[in-house]
């Protein structure tokens, strides 16, 4: 059964050094506040798994939380590069980062296999690309014919961390809109931590693709309004495109990055400091003109 707790306690209780951690959210519902708490608690040697690393993993990698990254697309959507990720891969700063990369379809198939209790999943893909020589795939022949398919190993993270719109007081989690791979990663992982916009008396899933995770499949839930910023939570917040643009400048410079992280994450008591800076317009002041 899911335990309603603070974000601090949820991370302290379920995320450990050396864990394989999957913080998912496909553009929508990205668990930023939870990522900041992992950084704040100084987790190390994590294997970070995520289809689209995005700003959240750029921050964790830049702060040295990660030993390895498993991903399929590592950019700043609509803006460009993730500079902390590139600095780690190209220059080993702040520390070398092992990478295992896949395609989106491959990652989705791996999570689905994990959620299904299978050792691997099958798909059409990777064939003819140079990825085959640099990642974990294999070819399997159909036992019913000549056709061959690509096999990818199941992904079963130690802990899944996701952000959803709602949880009820019994700990059932509800989300809608672009739900990405969140249901699969939650069902594939040994432990599940969820931050939500709002704890409600009764789930009220008001958008397309409504999706429920029953309480008994979740370990910890923390209410963190706007916890997905600069991503968004359909029905609650909108995407902060401006922040993604500003992140390019903040993350490009090592010193600037560290000053920003110190001010809004490691030097802050909790996510409220970040939200206050967002509200008073100072969150990007380190790179804003005048």
């Amino acid at each position, binding site marked *: 059964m899911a335990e309603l707790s603070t974000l601090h306690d949820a991370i302290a209780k379920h995320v450990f050094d050396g864990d394989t951690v999957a913080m998912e959210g*496909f*553009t*929508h519902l990205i668990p930023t506040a939870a990522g900041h708490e992992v950084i704040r608690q100084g987790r190390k040697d994590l294997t970070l798994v995520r*289809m*689209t690393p995005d700003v959240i993993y750029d921050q964790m990698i830049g702060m040295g939380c990660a030993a390895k990254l498993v*991903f*399929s*697309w*590592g*950019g700043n*959507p*609509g803006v460009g*590069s*993730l500079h902390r*990720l*590139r600095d780690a*891969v*190209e220059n080993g700063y702040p520390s070398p980062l092992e990478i295992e*990369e*896949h*395609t*989106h*379809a491959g990652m*989705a*198939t791996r*999570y*689905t296999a994990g959620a299904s209790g299978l050792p691997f999943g099958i*798909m*059409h*893909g*990777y*064939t*003819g*690309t*140079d*990825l085959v020589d*640099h990642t974990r795939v294999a070819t399997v022949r159909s036992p019913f014919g000549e056709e*061959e398919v690509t096999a990818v190993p199941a992904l079963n993270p130690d802990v899944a961390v996701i952000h959803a719109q709602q949880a009820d007081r019994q700990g059932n989690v509800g989300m809608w*809109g*672009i*739900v*990405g*791979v969140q*249901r*699969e990663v939650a069902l594939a992982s040994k432990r599940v931590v969820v931050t939500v916009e709002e704890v409600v008396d009764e789930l009220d899933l008001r*958008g*397309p*693709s409504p999706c429920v995770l029953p309480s008994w499949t979740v370990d910890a839930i923390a209410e963190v309004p706007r916890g997905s910023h600069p991503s*968004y939570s*359909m029905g609650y917040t*909108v*995407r902060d*495109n*401006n922040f*993604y*643009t500003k992140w390019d400048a903040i993350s490009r410079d090592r010193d600037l990055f560290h000053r920003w992280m110190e001010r809004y994450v490691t030097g802050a008591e909790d996510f409220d400091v970040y939200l206050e800076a967002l509200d008073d317009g100072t969150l990007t002041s380190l790179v804003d003109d005048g």
Partner: protein
Amino acid sequence: MADPGYTADEIMSIVAARQLRDGQVCFVGIGLPSEAANLARLTHAPGVILIYESGTIGTRPVVLPLSIGDGELAEQADLVVSVPEIFAYWLQAGRVEVGFLSAAQIDRFGNLNSTVIGDYGTPQVRLPGAGGAPEIASSAGEVIVMLRQSKRTFVAEVDFVTSIGFGRDGAGREGHRGAGPTVVITDLGVLRPSAEDHELELVSVHPGIEPDQVRAATGWELRFSEQLETTEPPTEVELRVLRDLKERTAQAHGGA
């Protein structure tokens, strides 16, 4: 040369949009492909069905999304499905007729690189990576590539094959469902693979562009088609709809 009354990006989007037929099912990436696909939807192809890899199917965004998962895409979609489903049930199963792709590099056989510049282990530039591109390149009925043309982007052989065109040897696409890249739209002209050896040839130059300019912007000895044409210039309607769309988008995203 005189101002043609449109930008290089504008004619790229407009020529790409012209490739889409009404009612086709189109898998769209973010950026120029999304701009071109929605331009087609707002002009000659109102019934085109747009699918984004975030799981939004049959979406009709009023303004262009900045990310592949903008709320706009979900709000305007016929249905929204999970990411595992969009790839398994929709792309892999062969329901997508046209895929739009871009990349950092393309080679003479239409192979695409969006992974690394330089050596994989010690890259000069680490690019974002594969995303959904490899399966779009493999499974879509055909692939339309959009890429600004230069010796840096149009290379004899890509540093890394992220998404297959006709293979490093140009031999073809055995084992792949789709026909691969059928057209490459650039800011200078239009290229298509030759029927004989799959090497990309220049089939059209945009107004005011000399064929030799295109060859000079290509990392291999570019062949010209015998039926080399000049691209039809953008019409007033195409330009007005495209500019309205971009204006709406800029306003909606606060100039971002």
